[in-house]
C-alpha cells in the first residue's frame, strides 16, 4: 500500500527521519519497499519558489489571441509579468505562481520535471507560471488554473495546499490486513515509538438519523454485515485539494467528491465503501444475493460480465448492480447529476471475493482488502465517517441508516504468559513492557491473558501469536547465540561422501557439471503435469541423457571444444505405491566413442572402489552395437542420429553404484610377497567376448590370480578367417609366500587349459 506521510501525521505526531521510520517498520511491522516523493520536490529551496499571487492586471496578449498577459502581485516591490493560456480568472483573482528556477513534479515525458525560466512568449516577458492543479500534483484535471479565496500575496504556496509529500511503499504480509490502512500503519508507528495515537474517525454516532434503508441480505455466509446510509440533496463536484492530493499519493485517481470520499475513508480505515445513485436503483433498496448463472452485469470499467451462481452480487429489484466487494456497476454509479446516494459499507467473506475476483480477472482496492479479511467491526465506523464527510463536502442531508447482520464476532480471549515470550525469543522483556506493547496494539490485559482487538482477531488466536507481537518489537535486541547441544554430531553419510567422490572424479576427468530441468517435453512417463506452464516443462523425466544431449548440442553450436558434461540428478520412475520411485543418477556425455565412455565408467567404478560387470545392453539413445550394462546402469556410444560425430554416454544409478563400493577398503599386503607378472596371448574365434575369456581365466586360476587385463586384440591373415588373438597381462600373488616359476607355470597352464576347453583357444605366446 502507498502511504502518504502527511496522512499518517493526522493520527500520530512523528519527528523521526523517514529513513529511520522505514527501517523500524520493516523490522517490526511490514516491509517498506521504498520512499517516494509526491508533488513538488522539497529540495534546494524549490518549495519556496511556489507562492500565492494576486492578479492586478490582465489583458489579451498583443501578439496571441489565446494568451492572457497578466501582472501578478507576489508581495514584492513590483508585480511580475506572466503570460498565461487560461481564461478562467481575471483581475483580482488569487492564484498559485511558480517563479523562475522552480522545478515542477515529474510527468509523463518529463521524468525530471520541468524547470521554469524567465523568457519571452510571443515577444512579451513571462516571469513565472500561473499554476493548474495537475501541474503540481494536486489533481488529475487541467480544467484551468487554481483560483483561491483572498490570501496575502507572497504567502508560500506550501502553507496553503499540500504541495509536497513523501509516500511510504508498505508491503504488508497476508496475515496483516490491518496494515492495508493509514490508521493501521499509524497504530504500528505509535506502538514502535511509544507515541500517542489519535482516535480513529467515525467511531461515535453524531446525530445518526432513524430513517430506514431497504436492505435484504440473502447470504450471511458471504456477507456478514451490510451498513447502508442515504444522503439526500448532494452536489457532485470536486473533493478538497488535500483529499485529492493524498489520493494521488496513495495511487488513486480523484473522480468526484462523493467517490473520492469513499476511497479516502477506505484507505484511512481499511474498510471498503461504495456509493450508488439511489435514483438508479429499482425499488430503492438493496438485495445481497447470489447471481444467477449467466446473469449479466456491466462493471464500472465498462466490461460486461457473465456471472455465475458462485458470484455474490448487490442487486436492486430488477438486476445485479455491483459485484460484491469487487466493483460497482456502470448503470448505478454516481454521476454529475446524482442528488441522492446510497452508501454501502459491508463485509464480504474473503474466499468468495477471491474466487470471483479470479474468475473475472478483476482486482480492485476493495477486493484486495476483502481477500485478506476486513475487520467487520469497521463497517459502521467507515459508513458513519464517510457520511459525515459527504455531508460536509458535498452537502445534502443524512436521512437514513441501516445496519444488517447476523451477529458480529466477539473479541477473542487468549491465555498468555509473559515468561513464555522470553523463553521463545531468547531475550528478556519485563512483563509490564510486554503489556505496554500489547496495549499500544489494541490488546487488553485481562486475567491470565489478553483480549485480542477485532482487527487482529483472524490472525492472533493462540499464545504463540501473542508472543510474536512481542518478538517483532524486540528483533533488534535478540542476541546471537547457538543451541546448547548435547546429543548431536554432524557427519556426511557414506552415500553423501561417495557422491562427492564421484563428482570429484568426473571433474578430475575434465567433465563440467551441469544442471538441467527435471521436467521434459517428451518423456514416456505417467507423471505428467495436467497443467504445465510450458510444453518444455511437462513430464517428470525417467532418464537424464536426453537433456544432456540437448545441452551438448547447444555447446556444439556455440563452438565449444573438448565437450564433456555430467549431471547428478533424480529420475522419477513408476513405483508400486501412489508416488514415483525417485532415484539419483549420474549421467554424462563426452567427446569420443564407446571406448572413451567405457573408460570413464571404469574410472568412476575405480574411484568408488567397485567392480563393474559389463554385458551387452541397449538404450534408445545408444548405438545398438556399442552399448553395455555395468550393473548400475548403461554406458555406450551415442546413437549416430542424436549428435554428429562419436560421443560416449553413460547413465548410472548412485544407489547401485554405492552398494557395489568396497569402501571402506581392507588393506592387502602386496609388498612382502611380490607379484609375478606374465603376458598371455590366445587365438580364439571372433565371437568370443574378451569379458568371457577373463571370467574363465579367473575361474581357472583362483585366488592367486590378482590382476588380469586385456591389452591387445589382433586380427591377421596368419590367424585365419574368423579368428582373433587376444593378449592379456596377468599378475599372480599369494598372501603367505613368494610364488616361484613352478607356481607361475602351474597357473598359466590352468588358464590356458581352461580357455582351450571352453573356447578352443590356442596358445599363441
Amino acid at each position, binding site marked *: 500500500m502507498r502511504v502518504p506521510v502527511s496522512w499518517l501525521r493526522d493520527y500520530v505526531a512523528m519527528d523521526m527521519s523517514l529513513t529511520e521510520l522505514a*527501517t523500524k517498520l*520493516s*523490522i517490526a511491522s511490514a*516491509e517498506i*519497499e*521504498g520512499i517516494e516523493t509526491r508533488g513538488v520536490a522539497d529540495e534546494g529551496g524549490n518549495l519556496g519558489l511556489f507562492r500565492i499571487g494576486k492578479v492586478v492586471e490582465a489583458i489579451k496578449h498583443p501578439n496571441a489571441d489565446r494568451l492572457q498577459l497578466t501582472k501578478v502581485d507576489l508581495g514584492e516591490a513590483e508585480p511580475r509579468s506572466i503570460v498565461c493560456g487560461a481564461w478562467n480568472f481575471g483581475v483580482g483573482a488569487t492564484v498559485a505562481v511558480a517563479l523562475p528556477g522552480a522545478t515542477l513534479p515529474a510527468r509523463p515525458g518529463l521524468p525530471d520535471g520541468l524547470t521554469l525560466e524567465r523568457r519571452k512568449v510571443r515577444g512579451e516577458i513571462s516571469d513565472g507560471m500561473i499554476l493548474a492543479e495537475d501541474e503540481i500534483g494536486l489533481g488529475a484535471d487541467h480544467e484551468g488554473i487554481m483560483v483561491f479565496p483572498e490570501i496575502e500575496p507572497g504567502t508560500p504556496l506550501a502553507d496553503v495546499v499540500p504541495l509536497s509529500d513523501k509516500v511510504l511503499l508498505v508491503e504488508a*504480509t*497476508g*496475515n496483516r490486513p490491518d496494515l492495508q490502512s493509514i490508521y493501521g500503519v499509524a497504530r504500528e508507528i505509535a506502538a514502535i515509538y511509544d507515541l500517542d495515537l489519535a482516535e480513529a474517525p467515525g467511531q461515535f454516532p453524531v446525530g445518526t438519523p432513524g430513517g430506514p434503508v431497504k436492505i435484504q441480505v440473502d447470504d450471511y455466509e458471504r456477507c456478514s454485515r451490510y451498513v447502508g446510509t442515504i444522503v439526500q440533496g448532494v452536489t457532485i463536484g470536486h473533493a478538497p485539494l488535500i483529499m485529492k492530493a493524498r489520493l494521488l499519493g496513495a495511487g488513486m485517481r480523484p473522480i468526484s467528491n462523493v467517490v473520492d470520499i469513499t476511497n479516502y475513508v477506505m484507505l484511512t480505515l481499511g474498510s471498503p465503501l461504495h456509493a450508488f445513485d439511489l435514483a438508479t436503483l429499482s425499488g430503492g433498496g438493496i438485495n445481497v444475493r447470489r447471481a444467477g448463472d449467466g446473469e449479466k452485469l456491466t462493471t464500472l470499467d465498462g466490461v460486461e460480465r457473465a456471472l455465475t451462481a458462485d458470484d455474490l452480487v448487490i442487486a436492486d429489484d430488477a438486476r445485479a448492480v455491483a459485484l460484491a466487494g469487487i466493483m460497482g456497476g456502470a448503470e448505478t454509479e454516481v454521476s454529475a447529476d446524482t442528488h441522492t446516494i446510497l452508501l454501502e459499507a459491508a463485509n464480504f467473506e474473503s474466499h468468495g471475493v477471491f474466487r470471483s475476483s479470479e474468475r473475472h480477472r478483476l482486482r480492485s482496492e476493495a477486493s484486495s482488502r476483502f481477500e485478506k479479511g476486513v475487520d467487520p467491526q469497521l463497517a459502521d465506523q467507515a459508513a458513519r465517517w464517510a457520511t459525515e464527510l459527504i455531508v460536509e463536502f458535498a452537502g445534502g442531508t443524512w436521512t437514513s441508516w441501516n445496519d444488517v447482520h447476523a451477529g458480529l464476532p466477539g473479541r477473542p480471549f487468549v491465555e498468555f504468559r509473559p515468561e513464555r515470550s522470553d*523463553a521463545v*525469543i*531468547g*531475550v528478556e522483556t519485563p512483563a509490564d513492557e510486554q503489556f505496554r506493547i500489547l496495549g499500544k496494539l489494541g490488546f487488553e490485559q485481562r486475567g491470565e491473558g489478553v483480549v485480542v482487538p477485532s482487527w487482529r482477531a483472524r490472525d492472533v488466536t493462540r499464545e*504463540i*501469536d501473542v*508472543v*510474536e507481537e512481542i*518478538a*517483532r518489537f524486540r528483533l*533488534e535486541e535478540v*542476541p*546471537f*547465540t*547457538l*543451541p546448547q*547441544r548435547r*546429543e*548431536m554430531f*554432524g557427519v*556426511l*553419510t557414506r552415500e*553423501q561422501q561417495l557422491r562427492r567422490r564421484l*563428482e570429484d572424479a568426473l*571433474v578430475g*576427468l*575434465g567433465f*563440467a557439471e*551441469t*544442471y*538441467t*530441468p*527435471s*521436467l521434459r517435453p517428451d518423456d514416456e512417463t505417467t*507423471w505428467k*503435469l495436467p497443467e504445465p506452464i510450458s510444453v518444455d516443462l511437462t513430464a517428470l523425466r525417467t532418464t537424464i541423457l536426453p537433456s*544432456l544431449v540437448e*545441452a551438448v548440442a*547447444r*555447446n556444439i553450436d*556455440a563452438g*565449444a571444444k573438448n*565437450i*564433456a*558434461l555430467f549431471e*547428478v540428478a*533424480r529420475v522419477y520412475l513408476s513405483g508400486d505405491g*501412489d*508416488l*514415483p520411485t*525417485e532415484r539419483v543418477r549420474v549421467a554424462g556425455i563426452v567427446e569420443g566413442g564407446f571406448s572413451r565412455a567405457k573408460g570413464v565408467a571404469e574410472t568412476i567404478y575405480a574411484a568408488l572402489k567397485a567392480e563393474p560387470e559389463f554385458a551387452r545392453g541397449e538404450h534408445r539413445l545408444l548405438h545398438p552395437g556399442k552399448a553395455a550394462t555395468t550393473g548400475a546402469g548403461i554406458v555406450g556410444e551415442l546413437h549416430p542420429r542424436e549428435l554428429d560425430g562419436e560421443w560416449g554416454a553413460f547413465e548410472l544409478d548412485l544407489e547401485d553404484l554405492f552398494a557395489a563400493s568396497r569402501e571402506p577398503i581392507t588393506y592387502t599386503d602386496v609388498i612382502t610377497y611380490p607379484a609375478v607378472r606374465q603376458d598371455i596371448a590366445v587365438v580364439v574365434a571372433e565371437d568370443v567376448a574378451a569379458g568371457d575369456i577373463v571370467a574363465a581365466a579367473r575361474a581357472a586360476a583362483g585366488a592367486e590370480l590378482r590382476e588380469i587385463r586385456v591389452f591387445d586384440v589382433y586380427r591377421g591373415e596368419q590367424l585365419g578367417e574368423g579368428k582373433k588373438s587376444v593378449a592379456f597381462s596377468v599378475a599372480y600373488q599369494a598372501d603367505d609366500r613368494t610364488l616361484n616359476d613352478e607356481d607361475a607355470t602351474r597357473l598359466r597352464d590352468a588358464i590356458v587349459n581352461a580357455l582351450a576347453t571352453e573356447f578352443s583357444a590356442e596358445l599363441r605366446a
Partner: protein
Amino acid sequence: MTDTPDWNAYEAEAAAAAQSAASSDELEEARVRFLGRKSDIALGLREVRDRETGMLLNGVRTRLEETFDTRAARLADDELDRRLREEIVDVTLPGDELPLGHLHPITQIRRMVEDAFLGLGYEVRDDREVETVEYNFDKLAFLPTHSARSPRDTFFFDPNHVLRTETSPSQIHIMEEKEPPLYMVSIGRVYRRDAITATRYPIFHQFEGLAVDRGLTLADLKGTLLHVMRALYGPERKVRFRTHYFPFTEPSIEPDVSCGICGGSGCRTCKYSGWIEMGGAGMVDPTVLANVGLDPEEWSGFAFGCGLERTAQLRHDIPDIRALWEGDLRVLRQF
C-alpha cells in the same frame, strides 16, 4: 730392442693434446691415441723388462690418466654449461593442456552449506520431490485458503500430489522418523509455477534447516544464521531479522544479510537499504510440532529456508538465473 722413445716428450705431447682438446670427442680421440690399447705407452708397458722402466712408464701413464680425467671433467662442465645456456624456453608459452572439469556453482554452494551445518552438528538429508498435499501443506499448517495451495502457484499432478514447493516437508519427514533432539539441513530441488525470468525459474534449489530441542530460542536461530551467512559470504557479514509471515513458523522472520557490495551503506544491489533478503525463517509453529506428536511445551524448534540459486547469484554476481540451467560451457568453465 728398437729405439727407446723419449717418454718425457711423449708425456708432454699427450698432456698438450689433452689440454688442447676442445670437446669430449676430441679428448677421447687423444686418449685413445696416447693411452689406448694400441698406444705407444701400452705397447711399451707390454714390453717392459726391467723394474726401472716399468716404474717410469707406469708413472707416465698414471699422470696422463689424471690429466685426461681432469680435462674430461672440465670439458663436461663446460659442455653442460653451454647446453644449459642454450636450453632456454619461452616461459610465457602455455603448458600442456590437461583435463580439468568444473563443479556447477550450485553444487559448490551446496557443499559449502553442508559443511557449514556439519560443523554445527547437523545431519544432511534430502527427501522426495513429488509430495503429497498432506506433507507439502497440511502438516505444515498451511491454511486451507493459502495461495500456495492453488494450482496457479503450485504444480499439481492430481488433487493429492504436487511437486514440492519448498524443502519444508523434510521437517515433517525427519520429525516422524526420529525422536528429538534433531538438527538437520535438507537440500534439494523445489518447484513453483513461476514464469521464467532473470530472477525466477520454476525449478530451483533450497536449503532448509530444522532444529528441534528443549529450550531453543529465536536468539539461537539468529546465531545459527549468522554462522551460516558468514560461511557463505565472508566473516564481515552481519545478520538482522525482519518480521514476516509463514504458515509453519511463529514467530516468523525474514533474515537479511548485510550487503557485500556496499558494505551496508546502500547500493543498487541492496536497493539502497544496505541489506539483502536471504529467505524465510522462524520458530516452528506449535501446530506443526503437535502434528508430529511432539508436545510444544516440552520441545521447541526453529527452521529456515534459503534459495541456492539466489545465493549463487549474490555470491558470483550472476545477473540471469537461466545461465545456471543451460549447460553452457562458457558459463560452467568459469566456476
